[in-house]
């Protein structure tokens, strides 16, 4: 291909539609973006906004139903729309490579990793197998995978999630493409693994001089990786510009609303609550006339915003900064956020729940397929868990996959019984009482809100029926009419219209389903609610609304909230106390302020550093953890975190590898499980610093 010194990728007025039996569904409309050589452009938006469709449109892989209905995509000056299938194949993989969300799914399970890597140069450059293999080895080394020879001989399922994603990245880099499209490349990974992968992508992008189109829903991640950003809403680009401009001088109401709905440092559930975007994302075939964001916009002006098509407007003085807003010059962008209702901080009341040295061990068959009869292995899912939770208190439980937070929830709920230790509910032992033996009041007292909104409601039962069933089981109301009345009251409580009672779950959006799940949990007047990542599967603008709802009910009903999450931003925003877990151990516990400020447990420190924050003022110390979270089936000896700890060298005598550290009190109510000396703890510096405004 001839040398080309213009932009790598120019997308102009691209429109893509999907065609169903009933109608044409426009997925992307009038979308333009330019990627210069060596530049990384972020494409941000909520699910369903069309960002992945843009990527597939660039790759010309829209399936049988999708079609480009307008505009052009030019790659190095060539119009991709006019290429033949053969020319297209020559570009795919060689010039443009793609990295996807689910690493496990995007690798062929029945093909060795090496063969999948070697295939790329063998197809495109016709190199010999030996040379392709040598190159694969190089690239695998480049993505920092240990023991490249062994990795090449492995099947994908033999690698961990982080390793798989590195292989996908390696595969994309095999032919040194000019453009790399990353579609939510880290969403399926744990936070600390995500940080390492993001670092790697940035380094390699620099090393190979590759341009990047980075698709993500996470503004923080885009800030860390990209030079420019394009915000999408409902199939349209609403604002494009450099990352600095868009983050600090946004000129579109949607961008502004998005930033106001995510918990940035400084947000506080009482003093500075988040502001959710009102209303719902429009369905593709029900978009409003004029501005798509109009119905949810604070600055909406009838007769102007809903009059007709809205073009992209240039913002003077900024570097290629565009907005799709007619009123961007009328709006006072510097005006502070309208203060939402401030609330009084509630004082925690008496202790309602106490755990004392709770242990939960599982025996699992060593081999799942031929199980039974074989040797069993003990999984120590929870090790000596001790804490108290008070009325009206929010206790956050933080940890990555395999840390034992779900097991803890199961034991508390009575779905499993404890191996050892005590759980005291109002000073009554319940750790050995399975749920079927608990009395109705105990069951109603401890309820749960689940993670996945698409899974939490029974798809074949109406919303009202599901809530009424909970009321029946908890012995509420004497007649069907009374229960129905109570059900409607619960719908009011979670701010859902009463006519939703008759709807089926599939007619509800993710956030609405989650509200029904909350209503169901509070049906028996629950006093302790375990919320297992209740918002992590929701879009950011919906997250704020659901979190606020939980807070509000908690205040009204003096509920004890056990908030399980891996997202430190939201934990910092809403919790009173935090408990950090790693491989079944509580490594740190304290009030929110104590945990988020030094001294930290080394794991907390790494976790804090790993969480992307969408604020240009924040400076973070980069701490990249090596490797993956070890399997709970096969934990390391000694301290569970010793395999990845950057402070390990500071503890003399290899103590970390031999002994599990004792629990130490650093301050009243602040405890860590670590061998580090007090002196070392004192030397720790804050990971996150907010530059003065």
């Amino acid at each position, binding site marked *: 291909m001839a040398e080309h010194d213009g932009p790598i990728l120019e997308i102009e007025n691209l429109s893509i539609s999907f065609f169903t039996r009933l109608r044409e569904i426009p997925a992307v409309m009038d979308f333009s973006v330019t990627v210069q050589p060596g530049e990384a452009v972020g494409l941000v938006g909520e699910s369903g906004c069309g960002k992945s469709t843009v990527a597939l449109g660039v790759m010309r892989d829209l399936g049988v139903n999708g079609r480009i209905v307008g505009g052009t995509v030019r790659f190095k000056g060539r119009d991709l729309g006019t290429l033949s299938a053969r020319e297209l194949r020559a570009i795919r*993989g060689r010039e443009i490579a793609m990295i996807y969300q689910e690493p496990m799914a*995007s690798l062929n399970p029945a093909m060795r990793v090496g063969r999948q890597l070697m295939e790329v140069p063998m197809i495109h450059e016709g190199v010999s197998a030996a040379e392709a293999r040598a190159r694969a080895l190089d690239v695998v080394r480049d993505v920092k995978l240990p023991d490249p020879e062994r990795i090449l001989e492995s099947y994908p399922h033999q690698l961990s999630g982080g390793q798989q994603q590195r292989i996908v990245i390696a595969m994309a880099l095999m032919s040194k493409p000019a453009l790399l499209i990353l579609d939510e490349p880290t969403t399926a990974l744990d936070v600390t693994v995500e940080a390492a992968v993001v670092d790697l992508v940035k380094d390699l992008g620099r090393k190979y001089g590759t341009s990047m189109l980075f698709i993500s829903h996470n503004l923080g991640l885009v800030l860390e990786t990209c030079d420019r950003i394009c915000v999408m809403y409902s199939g349209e680009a609403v604002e494009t510009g450099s990352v600095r401009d868009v983050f600090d001088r946004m000129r579109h109401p949607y961008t502004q609303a998005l930033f106001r709905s995510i918990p940035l440092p400084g947000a506080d559930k009482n003093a500075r609550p988040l502001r959710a975007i009102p209303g719902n994302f429009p369905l593709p075939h029900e978009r409003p006339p004029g501005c798509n964001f109009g119905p949810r916009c604070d600055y909406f002006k009838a007769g102007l915003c809903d009059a007709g098509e809205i073009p992209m407007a240039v913002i003077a003085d900024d570097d290629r900064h565009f907005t799709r807003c007619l009123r961007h010059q009328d709006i006072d962008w510097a005006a502070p956020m309208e203060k939402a209702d401030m609330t009084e901080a509630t004082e925690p009341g008496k202790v309602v729940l106490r755990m004392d040295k709770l242990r939960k061990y599982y025996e699992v068959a060593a081999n799942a397929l031929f199980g039974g009869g074989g040797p069993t292995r003990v999984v120590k899912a929870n090790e000596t868990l001790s804490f108290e939770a008070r009325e009206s208190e929010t206790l956050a439980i933080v940890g990555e996959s395999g840390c034992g937070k779900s097991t803890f929830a199961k034991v508390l709920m009575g779905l499993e019984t404890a191996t050892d230790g005590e759980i005291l509910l109002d000073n009554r032992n319940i750790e050995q009482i399975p749920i079927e033996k608990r009395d109705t009041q105990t069951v109603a007292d401890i309820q749960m809100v689940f993670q996945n909104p698409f899974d939490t409601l029974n798809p074949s039962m109406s919303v009202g029926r599901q809530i009424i069933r909970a009321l029946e089981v908890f012995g509420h109301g004497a007649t069907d009419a009374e229960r129905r009345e109570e059900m409607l009251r619960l719908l009011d409580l979670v701010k859902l219209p009463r006519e939703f009672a008759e709807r089926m779950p599939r007619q509800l959006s993710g956030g609405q389903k989650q509200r029904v799940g909350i209503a169901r949990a509070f049906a028996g007047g629950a006093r302790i609610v375990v919320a297992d990542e209740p918002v992590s599967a929701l879009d950011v603008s919906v997250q704020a609304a659901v979190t606020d709802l939980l807070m509000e009910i908690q205040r009204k009903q003096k509920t004890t909230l056990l908030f399980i999450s891996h997202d430190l931003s939201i934990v910092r925003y809403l919790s009173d106390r935090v408990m950090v877990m790693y491989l079944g151990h509580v490594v740190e516990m304290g009030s929110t302020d104590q945990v988020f400020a030094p001294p930290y447990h080394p794991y907390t420190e790494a976790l804090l550093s790993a969480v992307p924050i969408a604020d240009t003022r924040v400076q973070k110390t980069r701490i990249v953890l090596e490797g993956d979270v070890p399997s709970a089936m096969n934990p390391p000896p000694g301290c569970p975190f010793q395999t990845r700890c950057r402070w390990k060298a500071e503890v003399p005598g290899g103590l970390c590898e031999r002994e599990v550290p004792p629990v130490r009190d650093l301050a009243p109510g602040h405890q860590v499980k670590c061998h580090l000396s007090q002196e070392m703890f004192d030397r720790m510096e804050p990971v996150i610093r907010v530059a003065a405004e």
Partner: protein
Amino acid sequence: MTLAKFILRRVGVMLLTALCLTFIVFFLTNLYPNLEKLAKTQGNFRMTDEEVASYLGRNGYLQPLPVKYGQWMGVLPGWTQEAEDGTIRGRCFAPDQPPGDAPRFCGILQGHWGHSTVFREDVGAIIAEKLALTGRLMLWVMLLMVPSALILGVMAGMREGSRTDRTLSTFAITTTATPEYVSGVLFIAVFASTAVGLKWFKGTATSAMENPTFENFFLPVLTIALYGMGYIARMTRASMAEVMTAQYIRTARLKGVSFPNIVVKHALRNALIAPFTVIMLQFPWLLNGVVIVETLFNYKGFGWTLVQAAGNNDIELLLAVSVVSVVVVLATQLISDIGYVYLNPRISMT
């Protein structure tokens, strides 16, 4: 757990299953009305109840069921009786053998399959001969059925919803809706009858027992193959269609791999895992097909023998037939499990 241990366990389950099944067959065939029928077919149909009882008594049929089962298995000594005329008869006595030489045990553990009351011959010999005949039939069925079903399924599944897919799928559905006794009749009517007059093939396969030719053997093979073929093809199609929508196929496509290579290198192995299991589990069904087709085409193989044995309550022959078919079925299940492990790298042995 190692593969050897796994196989051992499976073989253990297999033996237990075979034991249970043969006992059920033993129990059902030894119900008194069945024995009565046996006595009457062996003797004559006008036997009185006393004559029936004495016949059964003389031949050891009136012993308790577990004892008879033990004798048949060869873990209990075979019965002996002294008749009024002083001759000693016994289960293990060959007709021209002096009584003293007869072994004490004679069951399947000793390799004695017993004596067929219908064919008046040693069961072991009958089974061996019939199995050979049916084996030949099955071999050709498999050779015809498996490749064509797989090709059909892959062709249909690689582009779901295309015209090829619809045509092939309709064909596959039609064959699964056509049991052997329908397709066999249709084939004979069209290709072998004087009424239509094509007379390309023969309507019976009796001559194929000695001398199989395309003319006398193709119709029975086709009839069995067709019914199973549709099923396997549909499984393959579903599996192929699912694989073709998988993310890793998209990865391959966006790597620049050409469509034929995607199908052959990336999709095929993954898509064949499910159908492989199905092909193996087809055996019990194929056995049905064999019974029907051998009856329909008068091919005196294993299936035909089953019908004869069952129709005449030929206990030992029937038991042998059940043992063989159960072992075949279970062995194929075992092979299917092991093959599944080998085809699917996601399941490791260690």
